[in-house]
């Protein structure tokens, strides 16, 4: 069982080491040696006759393995009037198969000491397995059964729907959740998938039938629409052999799915910066979401944008966090993100701020959104780039990390050497690149601003900022009487 790095040993309390250090200047940070060159193990690709793609990375350290079966269809495909289908169907994969009851599946998962998780997000639905290789046979048998033969039993569907509705009731209490959901609804509108709630609504969930769930599952989980990612202490040939045995007879679909589920929409007209205020009486903090429509993952501006975002709100030392937290103390943390999906996800800046400083926080957000369009000074840009480049090994440390990192490679057709060339691409981003994308994608004059907080105390001050008209909205982002 012992592998490199795990050597039998014991702790020997020792005499204290020599403390007569050579004289050195404590006032200077130490000079560092060169960072190790990151070389990731090779990505091996195979394909079964039925179209299922295999993507394998061998990693022979700890005797662990991570598998992700990914279907290229997610919540974006939910019908307009039945939001929540994909996430509910994903949930039901863990609630019983044609040969295992929900409880039996849970018992076996625990007895094996493995972890099986499902998730559906905009572009994909996944079922993942984390297992020691000693349990591989049993774990993969359970995993493939759950992936290929979900029962969608009526009683389990009812149970899951009731739990989802109750969860949505509970989420009414959570200002941060309400703000994020309303922001998407207002930014994209109800006619676009990205404007609809992926968890559904209390009313949409009740309309979902077992047939709806089965249809959603069947459309997504087809061999030709799916990829099996495998990372860990396993050989590619072994993965292929097992995949063929477990997934080779995947029944072909009644109705083959198309590649992408989304229909392109006409671009939304930008409107003047507006503040949408949702009341949460007596809230100790205001949940602020500020942004606009961003870019798809296929954007040619990917590397300039991740550099821009890291410096703007994607790191502790970023401008947003340093301003709102470390200078003004308005918040525990301020962030930004460009969410890049199959289509253009939002650019979003956010923070939970103390209610009494809601107006001041908004002014600081606006200050930073304007300032980032100017040239970023070289020292700041260099620090930002080095952070992205040099922390890459930490994002790829465990087998689970690597499996997750392969999801965008698979989903968006990135080159297999994406991570091996990542550092060079970041390094190539220039000051001019960053300014160009900042000016193109961040426009302070056409922002959507959502604030969830105590309307009685924050509405007046928000109006007084002059940042934009203040419009009251309901918790779902819907228009209400002003």
């Amino acid at each position, binding site marked *: *069982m012992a592998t*490199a*790095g*795990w050597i*039998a040993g*014991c*702790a020997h309390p*020792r005499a*204290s*080491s*020599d*403390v007569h*250090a*050579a004289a050195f200047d*404590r*006032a*200077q*940070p*130490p000079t*560092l040696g*060169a*960072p*190790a060159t*990151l070389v990731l193990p090779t990505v091996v690709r195979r394909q079964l006759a039925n179209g299922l793609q295999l993507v394998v990375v061998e990693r022979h350290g*700890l005797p662990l393995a991570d598998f992700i079966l990914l279907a290229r269809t997610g919540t974006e495909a939910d019908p307009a009037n039945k939001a929540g289908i994909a996430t509910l169907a994903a949930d039901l994969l863990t609630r019983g198969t044609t040969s295992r009851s929900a*409880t039996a599946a*849970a018992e076996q*998962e*625990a*007895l*094996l*000491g*493995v972890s099986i*998780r499902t998730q559906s997000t905009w572009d994909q639905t996944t079922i993942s397995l*984390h*297992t*020691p290789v000693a*349990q591989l046979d049993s774990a993969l048998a359970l995993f493939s059964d759950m992936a290929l033969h979900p029962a969608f039993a009526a009683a389990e569907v009812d149970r899951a729907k009731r*739990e989802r509705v*109750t969860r949505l009731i*509970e989420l009414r209490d*959570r200002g941060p959740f309400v703000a994020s959901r309303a922001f998407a609804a207002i930014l994209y509108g109800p006619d676009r998938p990205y404007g609809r709630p992926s968890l559904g609504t209390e009313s949409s969930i009740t309309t979902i039938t077992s047939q709806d769930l089965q249809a959603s599952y069947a459309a997504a989980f087809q061999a030709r629409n799916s990829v099996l990612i495998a990372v860990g202490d396993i050989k590619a040939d072994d993965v292929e052999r097992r995949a063929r045995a477990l997934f080779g007879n995947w029944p072909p679909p009644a109705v083959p799915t198309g590649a992408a589920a989304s229909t392109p929409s006409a671009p939304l007209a930008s409107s003047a910066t507006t503040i949408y205020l949702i009341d*949460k*009486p007596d809230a*100790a*903090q205001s949940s602020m979401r500020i942004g606009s429509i961003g870019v798809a993952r296929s954007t040619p501006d990917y590397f300039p944008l991740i550099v821009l975002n890291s410096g703007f709100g994607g790191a502790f*030392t970023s401008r947003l966090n*340093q301003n709102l937290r470390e200078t003004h103390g*308005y918040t525990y*943390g301020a962030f930004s993100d460009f969410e890049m999906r199959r289509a253009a996800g939002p650019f979003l800046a956010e923070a*939970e701020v*103390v209610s009494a400083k809601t107006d001041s926080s908004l002014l600081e957000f606006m200050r930073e959104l304007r300032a980032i369009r100017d040239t970023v000074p070289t020292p700041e840009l260099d620090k930002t780039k*080095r*952070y992205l480049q*040099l*922390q890459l*090994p*930490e994002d790829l*440390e*465990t087998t689970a990390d690597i499996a997750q990192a392969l999801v965008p490679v698979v989903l968006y057709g990135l080159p297999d050497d994406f991570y091996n060339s990542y550092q060079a691409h970041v390094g190539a981003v220039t000051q001019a690149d960053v300014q160009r994308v900042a000016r193109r994608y961040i426009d302070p004059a056409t922002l959507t601003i959502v604030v969830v907080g105590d309307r009685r105390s924050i509405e007046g001050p928000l109006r007084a900022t002059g940042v934009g008209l203040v419009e009251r909205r309901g918790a779902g982002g819907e228009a209400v009487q002003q």
Partner: protein
Amino acid sequence: MTRGRWAVRVAIAGCAVLGGFNRADAQVSDIPRLRIEQYVLPNGLEVVLHEDHTVPIAAVSIYYHVGSGDEQRGRTGFAHLFEHIMFMGSQHVPVGKFDQWLEAAGANNNGYTTEDRTNYYEWMPSNALPLALWLDADRMGWLLPTMDLPKVDLQRDVVKNERRERVDNEPYGRADETILAALYPPSHPYSWPVIGSMTDLSAASLEDVRGFFRTYYAPNNATLVIAGDFRPDSAKRWVARYFGEIPRGPAIPSRPHVPSFTVPRDTFLVLEDHVQLPKVFYAWHSVKAFHPDDAALDLLAYILAGDKSSRLYRGLVYDRQIAQDVDANQEGHRLDGLFRIAVTPKPDVPPATIDTLVRAAIRRVIDSGVTELELQRAKNVHHARTLDALASVSSQADLLNYYNWFAGTSDYIELDAARYDRLTVADVQRAARTYLGAHVVVLTVVPLGHPELQVRGAPVQ
């Protein structure tokens, strides 16, 4: 309580379970032995080294052996506030540079305060190790010269926002401190929450900061762990160079006195909150981490509510569908512990109904125990989590520091695994009878204006 949400990698037990074996006798030998080297500097700093060259990453973890349990009433939350202040620069590190220099080297960092210790940790590409050590040494030895009231005031505001985000603006957020105050006697070091109260945070002064630093932030009150891809001779040289000249501090005050106590009677509380659904919280006085009954209670918690085949989940959530979720946890700290259960009823289900079933489920365990299969499942999951904790170097570093301070030696992973593996169903039943058969604190958090939903005890005959 952490310094920030930026860096969320470290956990004592990894969040994903993994690893499982059908035969109990195979389990202990499965845990890898960690190569550990440990020594003490003349100034009292304990140093623990663990090499792992799997990936070119190194992790540093420094535990200062002070936590919220060492605070005084009137200054609750101070240990955590002080943690924030430790990032505000030191004599050779201008404010802001700590994070900037680490990020420029590709390193991440955070801090984490609990009842018993304050942890400062970084993880980084291996070549950045001396930078992290130099930064940590500077604030251990040279924090006060650049400390001023504006810095304290700023982090006071940040910490108040953390409290708002985690407690005051969080549904059911005040349940924890309500329970602690009811369960523990007022002199007990765990009777207030780590985050402290707004009033006490406002009262913290610059002189408090200086006094706290001089009392607790000394090498003789700290353990430094380095894990991952490093060369021992280089690491020892850097440790000696950066930390060696920091003078030993005065003798550390003895750990707080923990009064022995029992909960005198079942205690029923109610708290109104901005919530749609009530929620019922139970707490029993239990035992500290590594107490002989700690492992049995830990697995009891899993058997009661740890997964979808657990007793409370099956009984309340799955079969009857009267609960939305259930949680159970044996929370063993260094000096004492409590056992918690929490249940959210489904809409329109009276909390009293939940209470009847929870009490009955506990009664069944006390009277009839648990099954061998239930115990084996719980052991297998625990075993998996132990292996998972070894999958990243930052987690390894924290684990070694945790064992060192809480169990008395960093070389504890085999013994830790063994104390779970040898548990019997009789152990679990006895633990249930001893601790869950004693008096309980029951808190019902109810929607505004609905105190009638409170769970109350049966009338005394």
